[in-house]
Structures are given as C-alpha cells and as structure tokens.
C-alpha cells in the first residue's frame, strides 16, 4: 500500500475516449493492498476495459463481498455506484439490484473465499438464474487476509508458504460455472493484460451471466515454489486457447488474418468477439466440448485460459421472468402500487 495519493498529473499525451475521458478518469482511490498484488492488475484491467468501451462511469454498479478481492472496487471506477456486501452475499445483492434496475452494467467482484467457500451457494444460484452481470473472481488460492491458509481453490498437492501440502480437492469455478449455465466463461491471469482486458470487455458487453476466473498471485502468501498460483507457475503452465479482440460497431477492422485463423462471434448487442485461434480443434461455442477439454487439459497439468465458452444469444433472468422492461425507479406510483383490486386478481389466479 501507499500512504500518498496517486499524483493527479497524467501523461500530457494520454488518449481520450469517445466521452472525452482519459483512462485515469476511470480510476478510484489508491489501493491499500500489498505491493505487487495481482488484484491491482485486475483493477487496472477493469479500468482499461471500461475506458476502451466508452462506458459512462455512472452506468456501472460494482458489487463485492468481503476479502482482499472485495476491497478492490474502491480502487477503480471512483464515479460508479458500489455496494460492499456481507461476506459471500454479493451475488444476491447484485441479483436484487439487477431486478430493480436492469439498465445498469453490473460488475460483481469476488474472491476464492468469497465465492468458493462462504458464498459458494450464492455464486452457484446467481449463475443458474442467469443474472445479466460480469462476475469476476480474483482467484489467488489462498486466504491472504488471515495470513495464508489454503482456500477452496487451492490445488490438491500444492504447498503453503511454510511447506504444508494441501490434501483437499480444489473447486474449479470454471467447471461449476459451465455446468450451471454461465453463457460467457473465461479464465485469465492478472499478469497478462493483453488477454484479460478484452476478456473483460467481452463480458461487459455480454447480455447474460458472464463469469471470469482470474488467477491472481498473492505476493505475500502464495507466490513461492510449490504454489500453483504463483507468477512463475502460471506463466509456465498457461495454455491459452485463443486471443480475443472485442470490436465495436464503429471501429474499422484493419488487421488481416489468414483464413481459418480467426472466428468472429457476434454478440446480442452487435459487438463482435474476434477470436484468434491457437488450438484448431477448440470450439468455444460447444459447451460440452469445452467442459471435456477443460478436464483433459487439467489432467495434463495445464492451466487453460482464454474465452472458453460463449453463447452468443443468451437469455437472462429478466427474459425468463418476463419482468417489466423499465427500471423500477422510472415507474410511477400507479404502476408500482397497483392497488387492492390488482392484488385480489393476482391472488385469485393462484388459488
């Protein structure tokens, strides 16, 4: 952490986006996490993604629970809405907010403790309910705030800082998310922004439950030999499936690709996800195939990253429930409180 605020001065030639903002305008307070924390890199990637997508900061609601990861929403998008909930309860708060105002962009930030332990059920149900959100788990495989115990995502056989070996099986959040119906699933690494930033951009433009598992080394307690979530280990075992470019309608496509090398996936909102394939056989729109591939590569000791699954035409909670299209705060009293007769009619229909 730092005691001084980050100087307001920025590079005089820093680019501005369509809204006239620089990237610096998307920053929040200065981080109080440990120096070198992967989470800070993820915050920087979120800042970059929002800047590049020309997102109006006040159209974003950032939600989190408890933990190192859940502190980070304070460190980006200082002009956005935010809610720091009880431990593991971010998904239900986010679901509620989304039901009340579907027009905002929902960004849930959580950690491996918050989502794979105390909030595991919350995580699971928000995914299966198909809440339209970007759910990022900053996964360091360790309880950093309580000095380095194994978390539920620590790999079996990996070692703690003092040499203790983990005997428990790890929860693979990607596998769970795929199984429970997330329609945009990716994994990345805090130390690879070239991959992470477009992945977050694609997720923010996705109209359904988008889940990103981001491995984020804990420099204080999980960046040693024997860790499977250290900078060195992840770099050595990282197997990227594809590179992603998110292309918005107004941008001209200038890069040339060899035929068969790229695959364009058009999302519901018109944004194009351009995938540069690294593995010919991998089809990111095949959910069963993705799950199979994931297990296979995991057994081979690889950490598979990239956009692993995408349903270009998903259905979200609001569609499933046929809710009103207008956010609740823009409905008038008559619509919000329809009166005794409407209630009686509703009750009667349920008898």
């Amino acid at each position, binding site marked *: *952490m*730092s*005691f*001084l605020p*980050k*100087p*307001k*001065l*920025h*590079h*005089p*030639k*820093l*680019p501005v986006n369509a809204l006239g903002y620089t990237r*610096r305008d998307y920053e929040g307070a200065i*981080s109080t996490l*440990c*120096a*070198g*924390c*992967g989470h*800070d*890199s993820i*915050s*920087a990637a979120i800042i970059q993604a929002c800047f590049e997508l020309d997102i109006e900061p006040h159209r974003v609601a950032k939600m989190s629970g408890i933990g190192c990861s859940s502190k980070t929403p304070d460190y980006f998008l200082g002009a956005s809405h935010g809610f720091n909930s009880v431990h593991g309860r971010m998904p239900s708060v986010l679901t509620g907010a989304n039901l009340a105002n579907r027009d905002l962009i929902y960004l849930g930030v959580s950690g491996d403790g918050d989502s794979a332990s105390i909030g595991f059920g919350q995580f699971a149900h928000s995914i299966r309910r198909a809440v339209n959100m970007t759910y990022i788990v900053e996964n360091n495989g360790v309880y950093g705030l309580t000095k380095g115990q194994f978390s539920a995502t620590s790999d079996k056989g990996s070692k703690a800082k003092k040499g203790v070996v983990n005997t428990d099986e790890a929860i693979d959040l990607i596998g769970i998310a795929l199984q429970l119906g997330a329609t945009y699933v990716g994994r990345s690494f*805090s*130390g690879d*922004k070239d991959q992470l930033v477009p992945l977050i951009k694609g997720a923010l433009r996705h109209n359904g439950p988008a889940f990103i598992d981001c491995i984020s*080394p804990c*420099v204080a307690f999980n*960046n040693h030999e024997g860790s499977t979530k250290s*900078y*060195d280990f992840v*770099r050595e075992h990282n197997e990227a499936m594809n590179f992603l470019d998110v292309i918005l309608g107004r941008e001209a496509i200038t890069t040339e690709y060899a035929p068969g090398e790229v695959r364009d996936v058009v999302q519901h909102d018109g944004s194009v996800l351009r995938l540069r394939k690294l593995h010919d056989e991998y089809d990111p729109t095949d959910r069963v195939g993705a799950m199979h591939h994931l297990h296979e590569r995991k057994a081979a000791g690889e950490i598979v990253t990239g956009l692993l699954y995408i349903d270009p035409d998903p259905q979200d909670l609001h569609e499933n429930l046929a809710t009103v299209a207008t956010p609740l705060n823009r409905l008038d009293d008559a619509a919000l409180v329809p009166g005794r007769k409407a209630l009686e009619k509703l009750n009667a229909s349920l008898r």
Partner: protein
Amino acid sequence: MKPTDISNPDYFHKVVDCQWACPAHTPVPEYIRMIATGRYSDAYMVNWHSNVFPGVLGRTCDRPCEPACRRGRVEEEPVAICRLKRVAADNKEDIRARLTPIPEIRNGKRIACVGAGPASLTVARDLAPLGYEVHVFDGAAKGGGFIRSQIPRFRLPESVIDEEVGYITDRGGVVTHYGQQIDSLKALLAEGYDAVFVGSGAPRGRDLDVPGRKEAAANIHIGIDWLSSVSFGHIESIGRRVIVLGGGNTAMDCCRSARRLGGETVTVVVRSGFEEMKASPWEKEDAMHEGIPILNWLVPKQVLHQDGKLTGMVFEKVKAERDARGRRQLVPSGEPDVVIEADDVLVAIGQENSFPWIERDIGLEFDRWGLPALNEATFQSSIPKVFFGGDAAFGPKNIIWAVAHGHEAAVSIDLFCRGEDVTRRPPPDVVMSSQKMGIHEWSYDSGVSLDLRFKVPHAEHEVALRDIRTEVELGYDRELAFKEAQRCLNCDVQTVFTTSLCIECDACVDICPVDCITFTPDAEEAELRDRLRVPALNLTQDLYVQDGLKTGRVMVKDEDVCLHCGMCAERCPTGAWDMQKFFLETAKPKAERVHACQAQ
C-alpha cells in the same frame, strides 16, 4: 535495443534536465530540497560550489535550466529555479567560515587573469584554494566585470556584487590589480606567470550605420557603454523620448534604465519578430509591464536631425521570407516607412569581441571571426600557457556560461601547471544513494504538488520607476519559496531497476501516474518508442531499457515525463525498483594536498 548503461554518469545526469541544461551543472533539485526545509545556507553553498555567484545569478541568470525543467512538460510552467536560488542567497546566514579555505602556504605558481568578470573570478576562486597566487587585472575600479558595469541596479543591487566578488578576492591567494588595463599580452607574458587566463569579455558594442548617424552622434549612445556610464553614475538623465534599438537582454536593460532616468516615452524597435527576439521572455515581459512598447519588423533607415540635434528615426517595414536556398531573409514589406520622434537613441544591437591588446606576432592564432583559436574542451589557446574563457572565448553568452568556462579553464590550468596532459579531463564526482527509509518511507518528499508556478512579488510601479537603484523584484518570501520549492519533481532521485529481482507483476505499470513504464518484447528503439503505453515522441529524452526478464520481454521506461514520485518503487513487491539519489558535481581542480606538500 541495447540495454541502458546506467554506470555512465551522463545517463542519469540527462534525466536531471535542469542540471544537464545548466552550463555549470548546478545540482538544482538538491538545493531546492534544502530551501524547502529551510536550509538556506546549505542551499547557498551547493550553489556557490557550482556557480560561484548564487546571489547575482539568482537575479540575473539566463536560466537555461527553466525551459528544460520537467515540470514544464507535465504541467504548464517550470519551477522558478532561478528565483529560488535567490531565496537561498537572501536568507542564508554568514557563510564565510564555510568557504573553501585558502592555504597559508602557496604552491609557488602565479596565474594572471585578464579582466575581473565572472570567468576570471571563477578561475581565481577555483585555483586560490590550491595554493596558486592569482593576479586579477581589470581597468575598472572594482571587480565583477559586466556584472557590475552593465546590469542595472534595479535588477541587481551593488551590495550583492560586492559580497560575492569579495568571497573570492578578499580571502587571500588572489591579488587584484584594479584600475590596471592590460594593453599588451606580450608584456604580460614577459612577467613570467605560469599561466594566463583571458576573461576580458566582449567589450565592444556594435554600432549603427545609417545616414544621419554622425550628424546626430551627440544623442546616439552605444547600449553597453551607456549602461556602464549609468552604473558608475556618470549619466543620470536621458531625453524625454527614447528609442532603443535591438531585441536582446541588453536592449531590455537599456529601455528599463531609460524609463528610470527621465524617459517618458521609451520605445524598443526590433528588426525581427517578437518571438525571435534574443531577450528572455521574462525580460520582455518586465519591460512591457513598465509601459514600454516593443515594435517589431522595423529596420533602421535614417536618423533625423536638426541643427546637430537628433529629432527621430525612420524605419523601413520588413517581413521574413525564405530565399531560393531556404535562408531566412528580411525583405521590405512595401508598407510606408515608420517615423518615430525621439530625443535620444540607444543602440543595443549586439556585442563584439575585440582584442586590440593582443599582438598578432606572438603566436596566438585567431579564427576568421576574430576569436582566439581554442580547444573547446580545455580552453587552451595556441600558446600553451594562455587560456581563454567567458565571452572572450567563443563570443557573447552570459554569466553562467562564463562561470562554466572558468571552471574548465581552472582544471586545465591546474593540469598544465602540474605538467599533465590538459586533454585528459578528470571525471565528475558521482554518488548514487538509495532514498528508502522504510516500507513506504523515502528520505525525500515524494508527494507531487499540483500548484501552478507562484509569481515573484514586484515593487509598485511608482516606487520602482522613481529610482534606478530600487530593486524591482522583491523575491519570494520564505512561505512562497517553500510552496514553489515543492513544485520541484526531484528528478535527481532516479528510478533504478534491477532485472534479477523483477517478477513481472505489473504493479509498477499499473500505478505509474504518467504511464512511463512498459514491459514488451524487445525491438529497435524507433519501434519500441512507438509501442509504449503512451508513445515516446520526445526524442530528446532517453528510454531506460533493461533486458534479462524471465518472460524474455524488456522493461522500457520513457524518462520524458516521469514524476519521480516513487510510486513504482513503493508498489514493487521485490525492490526491483529503487529510488536512488544521483548527485553529480563536475570536476574541479582539487589536488590541493599534493600541491601543498610539494610546496613544503
């Protein structure tokens, strides 16, 4: 791209833009920090060692450091370095005990300095502490050269000159021969000095050559001669309407002096455009602030006179055009001539060197511009024991250049007198020291001030214009000085990168407020510059490149707008970044002990 060799002192020296730009390489951030903490005497001494005349320069320097200041690139205006220097001089305690001691025992060598201006006095100051006996000759009654004769008192009180010249001439080791103009180098050489330093300046003002010049001679004055007559009190008034010809700092001094000696309508007339004028922007500003208009694109055509008395001047209107060979030329614009009525004209259109006192048959070679043929690094002439410096060396410049020349010439003279090779220049003294005091504590104030440049308080117009001896600038008070000092970015506290410690976590990249750090695959410099987080378009600023990272990438830091805030080092989990203070002092002759021993 080739990794940066930070063991070469030039690399980090260049990052300290102000120090690099200063001809005398004054460690600017070092003394600014001292001012911020109220250590005025210490700040004065840092200056005194480098530039010899902090009080004088703090009021009159040409400030090459300020246009170079990094603050001007990240914000609007540079730090007011020059005026902070004055704060050190104004607020210091008695520092006489801290001046380099002059040994009782001389080393037996005698040096003659021609002229008592800043170059000669610098030579004297550097050599006297080594046991040399330095004889300074000057036609004037007091030392200081053009510092005393040409800079008007409203910019520089005489007491400041007396004090700082006195630190050199009144402590032994230096014998002054004031009122004694050297009129023969041959004769001087015959007196058996071990070396001679010529710091006689560029004492001749260029004259005007237009019809009417001779007839109206009584009311036409050469700028530098007129200024020195004013300085010495020989002239106390001027006509009501004055024309000043020329666009340099001398012209600015002339017009502002004229304004104080009875000139009610003073007009500056310049051949070229306003932007191209040689005068420093702040001097032009000060002049205009005193109600003096500056007229541009006017070339003198004729002097008007009646009965031997000047009545005005005629100017031809011109414009700039490129000729077939791309050279810029002033051509008549075709507009009607401009007539300006006047009682007196001051001619400040340049200075020239003149060496009528150097015989042309003693082996001293001159180049085709009439300047001595010198080795540019050693200042040695074609007569090995004769050295030049200041305006006498390479033509008119300014005080700080004269001081820089003096230092180098002193090194040469010392080497020469010891029988060593003058071309083998001693290296500068360089010290690098980590500023880390704790996990997030640095021994420098790393917070970056957002304040804009503070204005130096000036005396009221009515007061300032009444008496030529009233100093116009009042200088910063201590409070303002503190605030202005805080604007300094501490560019001498360097970001030093150790590749072997880096785990490539991106923390420095993410936190850097000005996006100067990028980790990227290696490439040639041009490609790298283009590929950075913000392209490095300022080619005058270096890239700091280090290879050997685990991923095979290189760390590239664009030095251009680095705030030296230390955030990268604070965020680095492994200490791969460190903030280290770079202190460089140019080589000065310092073989005092060896000499003293030999003398004994």
